[in-house]
């Protein structure tokens, strides 16, 4: 504790002068609130978080080794970009963000252990992290026990809500229902074949999809529903079944390496995605990189963000991302959602006027982020985001072309009535 207070005891006047001098050239470019009125640490941090007069510490907790590194790398990159941009714009309540990165190593107990370290030892004011539902479930009790704040980026199955978590990705109903309605209306789709990898997210999502298809779409039905173990690489048999049942829509929620095998084999089996409608909620631009654009061109994906979105926020985001991480990188839905985390936290802290977890949690509902690459988002009372849902069509160059977007923001509904 004493270590943390030391900087405050050194001549505060000298410090302020120095800061002022250093910032002089930048003054005209910055919004006035950024450091001019940096409030005293004792006022904005009453619970002993790692906040000093000039710095605030947050954690980044993702897998950079192990199986999940494939997916989580993009999230880490986006979070670092957001933090850098926030710092360049003056930080949070006049304090620069310093981050401590821990590796969850694709192992759920490790996630819990590292979460505890970030909260208890490092006293992080917020943690951006986790990707799979399993890792989130593993750290949730830690965040609730030690009262931390987690910004979770992945689209997921819903059925969860916590004071200590802000879910910046979509929950299942947001992602599923609009897409099914669209395919039913514009393609006249009546028969659906549901596929998925065998774990909680695809199963819950397909359950919601089935309820919606059978209960809300006129005359529509599910003609098949199947799950495959994670890492399954042989899809020829199910492709034959699809050929036999000739569904209007293949609805695929396959993840990881299986994805690559599925789309390559689908193409090899002569199923032409320009004629056969395929709708997925699990393939972002990141996955297409591995699948190969030529193997999935023509498929539709339903999510809230595509790299190709045409708006000024997104253009700035994409070029900043590529500048930082290389021209060849692609940005998928989850990467964008991860980018929202630090920004939403900054806006919430400034709204609350405090870093205290309880105040941040209480101030979260209603926080809006107008600079979001996806357009505009707002935090709901249930700590999920209001966001638009979009349908894109995959092109051979690995990008999606926007086909449809909901007129209004879709309300997050993590505990949907009639869908469980």
């Amino acid at each position, binding site marked *: 504790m004493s270590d943390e207070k030391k900087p405050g005891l050194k001549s505060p006047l000298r410090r302020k002068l120095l800061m002022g001098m250093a910032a002089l050239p930048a003054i005209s470019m910055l919004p006035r609130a950024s450091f001019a009125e940096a409030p005293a640490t004792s006022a904005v941090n009453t619970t002993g978080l790692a906040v000093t007069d000039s710095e605030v510490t947050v954690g980044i907790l993702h897998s950079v080794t192990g199986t999940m590194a494939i997916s989580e790398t993009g999230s880490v990159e986006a979070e670092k970009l957001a933090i850098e941009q926030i710092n360049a714009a003056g930080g949070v309540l006049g304090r620069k963000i310093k981050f401590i990165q821990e590796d969850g190593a694709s192992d759920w107990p490790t996630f819990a252990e590292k979460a505890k370290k970030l909260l208890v030892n490092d006293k992080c004011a917020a943690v951006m992290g986790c990707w799979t539902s399993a890792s989130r479930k593993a750290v949730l009790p830690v965040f609730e026990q030690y009262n931390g704040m987690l910004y979770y980026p992945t689209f997921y199955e819903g059925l969860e809500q916590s004071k200590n978590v802000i879910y910046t990705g979509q929950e299942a109903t947001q992602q599923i229902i609009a897409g099914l309605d669209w395919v039913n209306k514009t393609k006249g789709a009546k028969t659906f074949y549901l596929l998925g990898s065998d774990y909680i997210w695809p199963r819950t999502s397909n359950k919601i999809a089935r309820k919606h298809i059978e209960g809300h779409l006129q005359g529509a039905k599910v003609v098949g529903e199947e799950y495959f173990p994670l890492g399954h690489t*042989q899809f020829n048999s199910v492709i034959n079944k699809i050929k036999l049942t000739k569904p209007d829509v293949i609805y695929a929620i396959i993840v990881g390496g299986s994805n690559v095998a599925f789309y390559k084999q689908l193409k090899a089996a002569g199923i032409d995605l320009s004629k056969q409608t395929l709708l997925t909620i699990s393939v972002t631009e990141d996955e297409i990189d591995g699948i190969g654009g030529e193997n999935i061109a023509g498929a539709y994906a339903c999510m809230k963000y595509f790299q190709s979105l045409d708006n000024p926020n997104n253009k700035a985001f994409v070029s900043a991302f590529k500048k930082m991480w290389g021209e060849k990188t692609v940005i998928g839905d989850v990467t964008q959602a991860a980018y929202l985390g630090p920004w939403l936290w900054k806006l919430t802290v400034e709204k609350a006027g405090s870093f205290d977890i309880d105040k941040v949690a209480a101030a979260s509902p209603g926080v809006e982020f107008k600079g979001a690459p996806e357009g505009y988002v707002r935090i709901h009372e249930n700590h999920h985001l209001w966001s638009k849902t979009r349908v894109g069509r995959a092109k051979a160059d690995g990008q999606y072309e926007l086909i449809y977007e909901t007129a209004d923001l879709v309300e997050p509904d993590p505990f949907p009535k009639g869908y469980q």
Partner: protein
Amino acid sequence: MFGDYSLSDLGAIFAMQGFAGLILFSVYVLMALGLAIIFGQMGVINMAHGEFMILGAYVTWMTSSAFQQYLPALFPGYFFVAMSLAFVASGALGMLVEWALIRHLYKRPLDTLLATWGLSLILQQAYRSVFGAREVGVELPEWMMGSWQATDAIQIPINGMFVMGLTVLITIVVAYVLFWSRWGRQVRAVVQNRVMAGAVGINTEKVDRYTFGLGCGIAGIAGSAFTMIGSTGPTAGQLYIVDTFLVVVFGGAASLVGTIASAFTISQAQSTMEFFLSGSMAKVLTLLAIVAILMMRPQGLFALKVRK
């Protein structure tokens, strides 16, 4: 289940399903061949087999990028070059590993299990550091994609037929090398009696090294071929390793014929059940059946007859 479909539809589906089973069979044989050689001839349980396969896949990816960049005119044929390079790269790494690691552990078979498992983790992280954590997409020449239209309703994947052809070729070559060549006789002599083999002038260390290299090289070719049907990422090798061991153990460790027979049995059971049941269920039933059979016949389907 089939009441609603016409007879010709069903005929076409069953024909395609038959091919699906054969393709799966070829994939299994190709995966397991390298492991069967190493496990069967040397008694080494190579847990890093999947990583040797992925090395082949990465070599293929690099070759394809290089051809696109420098020799776009020859791109349609790059796959054959890639497979040869994959064989060389994986084989060379295999020999290096044998020299540095495995040869010190021949008398401690369980330790080879741990050592090669550690090696697999090291290789995975090495791929991640060198090639990045994300999967890479291997671009195939146009002629290898799509399907062959046998009749109006029957389509056979071209890459599946390619894998089948490749499997047949490699199996014949391996069988020839092991059973008819001078080097193969040396290998079998070492397997049967290492000390006597040494006494009659066979350089047993060299035989070990080349055998291990051959097994790993074939894994490399398999990995190269699987870029057509699967993913290429640092941990993709793990997707194959369980099935591979299953095939080898079920077939009887020391027998090539056993490996082939077991690959055939498992693939047919798997693909037939996958058609009638769901994917996960088919896998569960296949595994249960294998467990039951191995309980009755622990030595696997085919075993060397040895005096105990």
